């Protein structure tokens, strides 16, 4: 544009900031609220042969996880106003617990781990057992 890389970069970053701020002011900064129904709907699309046994929805509605009869784990997480999922085979999961929070490595460079907060430490501990059952 101007012939100067530095100046071009500054102008481009300024333009990006302008568009991003504009999108913010028109109300585009939104996060999805992950409910059991929303997680199930997305899971049915992404992993139609995954049969969930039960769901744990994070108290902040930012993530959810499910275990199937076969011990497979399905993670649902927020990505802005959309939901993404990861399916982990039985025996692949090495979840840990910190208080009420479960930390599940998603083994993916795009999303290394998912955090799900249970309603109580007891619930978190029960789910930790379910997640790691096949280890």
């Amino acid at each position, binding site marked *: 544009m101007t012939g100067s890389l530095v100046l071009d970069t500054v102008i481009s970053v300024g333009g990006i900031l302008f568009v991003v701020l504009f999108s913010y002011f*028109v109300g*585009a900064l939104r996060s999805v609220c992950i409910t059991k129904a929303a997680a199930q709907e997305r899971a049915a699309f992404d992993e139609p042969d995954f049969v969930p046994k039960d769901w744990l929805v994070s108290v902040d509605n930012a993530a959810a996880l499910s275990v199937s009869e076969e011990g497979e784990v399905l993670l649902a997480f*927020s990505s*802005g106003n*959309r939901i993404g999922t990861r399916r982990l085979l039985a025996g692949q999961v090495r979840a840990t617990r910190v208080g009420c929070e479960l930390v599940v490595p998603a083994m993916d460079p795009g999303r290394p781990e998912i955090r799900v907060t249970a309603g109580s430490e007891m619930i978190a501990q029960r789910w930790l057992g379910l997640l790691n059952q096949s280890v």
Partner: protein
Amino acid sequence: MNFPDVTTLAVPLFVAMILIEMIAWRMKRGGDYETRDTAASLMMGLGSQIAPLFGGAALLTAALIAAYEVRLFDIPNVWWVVVICFVIDDLRYYWWHRISHERRWFWASHVIHHSSQHYNLSTALRQTWTGTVIGGVLFKAPLAILGFHPLMLAFVGGLNLLYQFWIHTEMIGRLGPLEWVLNTPSHHRVHHATNPRYLDANYAGTFIIWDRLFGTFVAEDDGERPRYGIIKNLGTFNPVRIAFHEWIGIAKDVVKARSLREVLGYAFGPPGWSPDGSRLTSAMIKKRWLQQQAQQQRHPSKLPAE
């Protein structure tokens, strides 16, 4: 004949059209925007302009000039040659784009463009940072060897990219008879969709005729709204992670490979390839879906519960 850098010249137009589309979205005319997604797309677009300066652009230019030096014909730089060059380059784009979906080495670069779960004009600018160093020149060099000047090739390539900008929108429906010849928003929505019926389809740049000719055309079905993104959606807006996640994935897989066959399969097989078939390629997903459809037609009472 001068060949301007049309992509750079069009940047103000890109910005204006994105802002207009955002306003139209707020007025409930369709489409959808999310701030972090848009920011990520624009950062990827900026990075795609800067990254080639670290050697990729020079490499590409040198290869094209070298190819042009051994040209078969002296093709003049006149307007009607530019038109022919545009059409031939669009055919080149079709195959380049197709292999970018069918082989993981190229997909690792192209996946960036598909990594948004949104489909709007900002998605058009979500471009790769590694596109100039993965071997795309192998597809472009034959045109230079034929005798098309490298600057003309850069110009028609830029025009093609420019054309593809406006088709990244949900706000435009179908365009009548143009749908037969041109790549349109409807056709390209199908290309960006992850619904099994839409996978591996509509690779066209400007002319959809290539897909019709080579059997990869799928029409948008009014009964099934496209769901955008990739099979394993990223869940990050970090540009560096977006740019390199698939390369990291390849590296991790190659490190744990137990034979040369596995190394080659992980790097150059279809995305989703695994030696034991435990992962799914898009062809496998589509096949599974087709089998389910056939099964449901044979036994309509066994439809899955809503």
